[in-house]
Every structure is written in C-alpha cells, then in structure tokens.
C-alpha cells in the first residue's frame, strides 16, 4: 500500500486481496444474517459504506484467517477461499461463496511493480462487493440457525500450520451456481461465485 502509487507489487497485491476478503466476508455475514445486524458497525471503505463486525470472537477469527491468507497470497500458494454456510440442525451445507484465486507466480521472481493503479483495482473490488450485496435478492432465505466456515484451498506442498487442519470440500448436494464479477490486481486474479442449495420451489 505504501509504494503503490504508480504500480503494484506482490506484497501490495497480497494485502489488497486480503483486505478485500476481510470486507467481503464481513458483508456476506451481514447480508445473509449469519450474525445479528446489531453486531455490525458502519465503516466507509472503497468509497462506499460497509458493515464490519463488532463481535470480538468473530473479529479475532477473521483476523487470524486473513493474516494467514495474506502469507499464502504472498507465497502464491492459495487457490481458493470458500465461505461455507451450514445449517446447524441438519449439518447440511446451504451456501458456498467461492473465490477462485489465480496467482501470477512469475511475480515472485520479478519484483518490478505492475502497471495498475490502486484506484482502478479498488473500483473493481467495489463492484464485486456491490454484486455480493445484490445477490440477496435471489438467494433463498436462511430461515434456520446457520453458521459459517472458511475453507482455503492451497497447494499440496503447503505445510499445514498450527491451529489449522484439513477439511472436506463441503460440497452442496444439488446446487445452483451463479458467477459473480471478478477483479485482478494483475498479480492475483479473484473470480467470485456463489452456489446455493436448490430449493424445491425454485
């Protein structure tokens, strides 16, 4: 962020993407009502007002994940980040917010900054978050108590750090998928999409 007035470096890109994930996850949790709306506070970011959680446990968890994710983004070993929403009663996966990350691994060798201004990247991020907000209109209502989990798809060689463990992909049985916008920092490209359980009425 500091030296990216003209271009963008790998470090800056990793930080931008991690920041996007932090805000994106917060807004999904707010929009989908996984946590009560009164536990969120309004913040201005990317020239738009966003909701950030004030729940300390959640904050702590997100900070942990995002910091680890930043490292992986810097190593270019992360492939996907998935936000899984599961029903607590039936343990059924109801929604999967999947962010495919394409890393330009050549950026690790060539340290020269890329020609892309932060302004344009933030514009792209803003449109992605807008779309996430707009998806509430067609996603089925979550009427039962739900919880979320964050899965990170990494390269196989990646060591599993402490406090982390391997997990299943948590695939939805009979799902509908919707592709959302994508953005790129010219080093990391993030494709977003949401899959949700097909309801009988739909």
């Amino acid at each position, binding site marked *: 962020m500091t030296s990216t007035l003209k271009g963008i470096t790998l470090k800056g890109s990793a930080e931008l993407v991690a920041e996007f994930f932090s805000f994106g996850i917060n807004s999904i949790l707010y929009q989908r009502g996984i946590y009560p709306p009164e536990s969120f506070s309004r913040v201005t970011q990317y020239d738009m007002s966003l909701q950030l959680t004030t729940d*300390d446990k959640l904050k702590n968890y997100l900070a942990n994940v995002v910091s680890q994710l930043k490292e992986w983004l810097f190593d270019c070993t992360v492939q996907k980040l998935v936000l899984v929403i599961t029903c607590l009663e039936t*343990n059924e996966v109801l929604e999967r917010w999947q962010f495919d990350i394409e890393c330009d691994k050549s950026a690790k060798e060539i340290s020269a900054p890329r020609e892309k201004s932060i302004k344009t990247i933030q514009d792209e991020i803003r449109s992605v978050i807008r779309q996430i907000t707009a998806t509430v209109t067609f996603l089925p209502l979550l009427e039962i*108590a739900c919880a979320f*989990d964050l899965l990170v798809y990494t390269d*196989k060689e990646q060591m599993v750090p402490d*406090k*982390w463990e*391997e997990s299943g992909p948590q695939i939805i049985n009979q799902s509908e*998928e919707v592709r959302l916008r994508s953005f790129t920092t010219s080093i990391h490209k993030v494709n977003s999409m949401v899959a949700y359980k097909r309801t009988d009425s739909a």
Partner: protein
Amino acid sequence: MDIEDNTTVFATLKSFNSFLSCPEPPKRHSDQPAGSANLQINYKRNMELLDAAERVQSKSQYIKLDQEKKQMELSHKRARFELEKVATDSAQDLEREVDRNQDLLGRIKRLEEKEEDAAKSLSEQLGNNRVLRKNLDDLNKKVEERDVSLNTANQTISGLKDEIRELKQTVQNQDCTISTKNLENQSLQEQLDLQRRRYQQVSQLCQSLQSAQSSCSEHVIKIKELERRLSLQEQDIALVKTMRSEVARVQDLDKEVRRLRDDNAYLRESRENSSLLKEEVEGLRRKLERMEKTKEDLVNSELEKERLIEKLQAWEILGQSTGLNIRKPEDLSREVIQIQQREIALKEQNYTLSSRVRSVDRSQSQLQGEASQQRSKALEEQKKRETQDALVRRLQKRVLLLTKERDGMRSILESYDCELSHTEYSPQLSKRLREAEDILQKTQSHYEEMEAQLTKAQEETGTLKLQLQTVELELESVRKQQSSVAESNWAMVKEEVSLLRLKIEDVEGERQRLEEQNNILEMRLERHSLQGDYDPVKTRVLHLKMNPTNVAKQQRQQETEALREEVTRLREHLRSLKDAGPLALQDNPHTGIRGLGLSLPPSQEVLDLRKQMESLEMRNQRLKEVFQRKIQEFRTVCYVLTGYQIDVTTETQYRLSSVYAEHMDDSLLFKKVPQCGSCGIMQLMETEFSKTLGEMVALHLHHQKSIPAFLSALTLDLFSRQTTF
C-alpha cells in the same frame, strides 16, 4: 584677458600698418588723384586721434594694474599674517594633541591592564561555562530520559485508556446480554411454573380418570360375565327343548337307523365296485393319452422325415450340380476345409506375389536409377566422342596442312638443293630438314595416338550403348511383369483401399465422438470446480480448527445436553410427584398442589373430562342396577322354567340344584373344559348326589352324550318321586 585683448589689438594694428605701408596702386592715383588726397588727410587725422585714444587708454590701464598690484600685495601680507596665525594655532593644537595622545596612551595601558584582567576573568568564566555546560548536558539528558519515560507512560496510559474503553464496552455488552438473559430466564421460569401447574392438574385428572377407568373396566367385566351366563342359560334352554323332541323321535330313528345300515352296506359294496370301475377308466384314459402322444410324435416325425428328405435331395442336387461327391455333411465340411486350405494357399501366394511385386518395384526403381545413370553416362560418352571426332577432324586438317607444308618444304629444299648444289649450305639445310622430319614424325605419332584414343572411345560408347540397351530391355521386362502383377493385384488393392477408407471413416467417427465426450467431460469438470470440487493430488483444503461452525455446533451440543439434563430432572421430579402425589391430591387437590409448590389452574379440558367422567359413572351405576335387576329376573326365570338354580362356585365351575331336590345339599357340579370352540364342553363333576345317579349318567351322558337330556331325566325322576304320594 587683458593681455589677450591687447594682442588682438596689436595684431590688428600690425595688419593695418602693413596695409598702410604697402604702395597704392597707380591706377587710383591716376583716375582719382583729388579725391584720394582728401581721404588720406582725413584718414591720418582719424589715425592720430585713434592713437591718442589708445595711449590714454593704456595709461589708464597701467594705473589700474598698479592699483591691482598694490591690492595684491596687501592681500598677500594679510594672507601671510593669517597663515602665521594659523601656524601658531596648529602648533598649539599639536601640543594639545600630543597631550591628549599621552593621555590616551595611559588610558590604553590602563585598558590593556583591564583587558588582561578581563581575559583572566574570561578564562575563569570559560572554565565555569564549561562546567555549567556539562551540567546543562547532564540535565538535558536527564530531561530527555524523563521525556522518554513520560512518553512511554503516556503511551501506556493511552493503551490503558483504550483497554478501559474496550472493557467498558464489553461490560456494557455483557450487562445487556445479562439483562436479556435475566429477562429470558424470568420468562422461562414463568413458563416453567405455568407448565408445572398444568402438569399437576393434568396428573390429578389422570389419576381420577384412571380410577374411573378401573371401576369402569371392573363393571364391564362384570357385565360381560353376566352376559356370558345369560347366553349359557339360553343355550341350555334350547338344548333342553331339542332333547325333548329328539327323545320323542328316538324310536322312529332306531328304525330308520336299521334301514340306513342296510342301505349303507349295500352302498358300500356298490362304492367298491364303482371305485374298481373308476380305476379301470383311469387306466384306459392314460392309455388313450399315451396313444395320442405317440400319434402326434408320429406325425411330427413324419414331417421331420419329409423335411430331411427335402434337405437330402437339396444336398444331392447340390452335389450333382457342383460335381462333387457330396453325400453327407462330412463331405461338405471336408470340401469346405479343402477350400479354406486352398484359399489360405492362394492367400499365401498372393502375399508372396505382393512381396515379389514390392521387391520388383524396388528393383525397378533401382534399375530406373541405374538406367538414368547409364543414360547420362552414354550422353557424356557421346559428347566425348563428338569432341574426339572434332579433334580428329582438326588433326586431319592439321595433318593435311603439315603434309602440304612438308611438300612445300621439300620443294623448297629441292629448289635449294638444285640451287645450292655448289654452295656449302647443305649441312645446315640437311639439319633443318632433319628437324622438320622429326617434327613430322612426332606429329604423326601424336596423330596415331589420338586415333587410338578415338577408337577406344568409340569402343567404350559402343559397350555403353549395349549396356543401355540391355538395361532398357530389362526395364521393359520388369515393367511388363509389374503391369501384369499390378493388374492381378488391382482388385485386391481396391478392396484394401475401400477397407482402409472404411476404417478411416470409423476412426474419424470415433475421434469426433471422443472429442464430444472430451467436451462434455470438460464441462462437467468446470461444473464440478464451480461446485467446489478439487484435485486431491494438487490441492488440499484447510480450515481453522476453531471455526465458527464448530464453535456453534459445540454450543448447540452443550445446549442440547443441558436441555436433556433438565428434561431428566423434570421427569424425576414428576415421578416423585406421582409417587407422593395421589394421597395429597385425593385429600385436597388445592392444598396438595400448594404443598408441592405447584399450582395449575383447572383448564377447560379438565373440566370437560370431569363432566365426562361423572356422566360415565352415572351410566355405570345405572347399568349396574339394570344388570342386577335383569340378572335376578333371569335367574328366577331360569329357575322357574328349567327347575334348576345355577350358581357359579368358582371360575368355570357351575353348581346346579334342582327345584325338586330332596335335600338342600343335593346338587350337581359342572366344569367347563376349554376347547377350540367358543363354549367348550361341560363335564359332570363327582358329588355325593351324582354318585346316586349312576344309571342316568350311564344312559344320558355316556351313551346319548346329552347333558340337557340327563338334566331333564333327573328333573322328571325327582318330580315323580316328590309327587308319588
């Protein structure tokens, strides 16, 4: 100024004088002598006047200059006086200045002294200064340290303030949550109380209901028993009636029995006969069936035979037409095998031919290459020959020339000889001649060599031509062979080509199919990746152990466990209430409930149930009364009609005491033995009274197997005994 003016005057004077002194032109003298004389006089006068004026003027001037000179002297004296005066003043000044200088020198000395003092003090001051500076630095350092510590303290203070703020927030949040929790708790407790009250009421009602039900069931059982007794009695009545009628018909029946027995014997014989006949019929039928089957088989076999004959004929025709001695399928198979073998042999031949064709092709191509080489060689040789021919021609020409030259030379020599027969030049000439002859010989030998070469070359070309011809011949033969082989192979090649084409088409089709499949699979793969599938070889999925889902699940589990515990606790509570409850409830429901800490308001349901229960009880009571009445009536009616009073001593045991009994204790005991039927069989038990009735028992029960008959007989017997006065 004056001097200059004077000079000018003098200059004019001089020029004027010179003008005057020069002689006058004679013409004027001559032309105007009178006039000129007058003018000259006037002029002289004027000039004199002018001179006088000038003299006066100069004198005055002189006087003036003198006066000026005196004035100048005066001024000079005055100036000198003044100068002296000034000199004395200046001397005085000088003295004063010297004095002052001395004063100043003294002062300077004093000042120097002072300066020295000052320097000393300055050095002292500098020393002091240094000390002070050091002190100052120390102090500054101390101050900086304090500043640093102050900053750290400030930072810690700010951090602590932040923490305090956060803690306050958390405290507030927690307060809020606590208050909400308290509210929830209160509401839950209220609900619990309500539920307990309800539960108590319900349990109370349940108990009352159960007691009512139990009484009800008892009544029902009683009713059932009574009904059963009633039905039994009715049956008995019916039995008695039938017995009576049967007894009346016994004699007729005996007769009939005899008749029937006879009939029976006759019928048995006839039945045996008929069974024998039936068996015979059966045997005949079977035979018939077998016969029919054999007939069908026969027809089928005939049909088959005809078919076979047809086949055989066909085979024979085939054998005749083909000219082979095919009589049997074995022959055919042998033929087929032979044909196959022949085919195989032909195929082998074909293969060998094709291989030969290929080898021939190869050799043909080789030979073609050789032929081309040979042709090129022949061409080269032809060229060589041509060049040789040309050379030969040229050489012939040269030879001709040389011979001509030689002839010429000879003629010259001859002429020389004839000319110089006398002279002494002959040796020289003979020398020349010899030289020339030598040259000639050399040329001749050269010519011969060339000719030899030519012939050689011609021979070579001839051999090459021969070779070429042979090669061409070979080529033609090979071509012929190839064409013959090609014609024979053409059809096969065509077939092969068509086969290969088909294969290619098949392969193309398969390729397209595979491409489509590949596309489909790729689509599927993309869909799978959309759904979140991954390649387990390259990718692994990670998540934090303490993720919100797990936390929420754990919380849920804990909650469920807590709820379960509560449920078990409540169940136990209920059980204890049930154990301790009934007495208290029956004594006084309200106080009992109070005593147990539960107070459920009577609900509409409970009231309804109570009403229902009351009505049921009433109905029960009425039924009981009705039943009792009816039973009594029934018993009396039974007693009056049958003459027997039936009592139930124990379950399944009935005591019958007759109206006409001689003693009160005379009674019969019947026991119901359960059997498959609904009623079962009644057995007479041995009593004191029954022992006396051996005859009747033997007749009616053992022989006739009829209890009503027995009872009726007994009644009649007792009646006759009582009424025989």
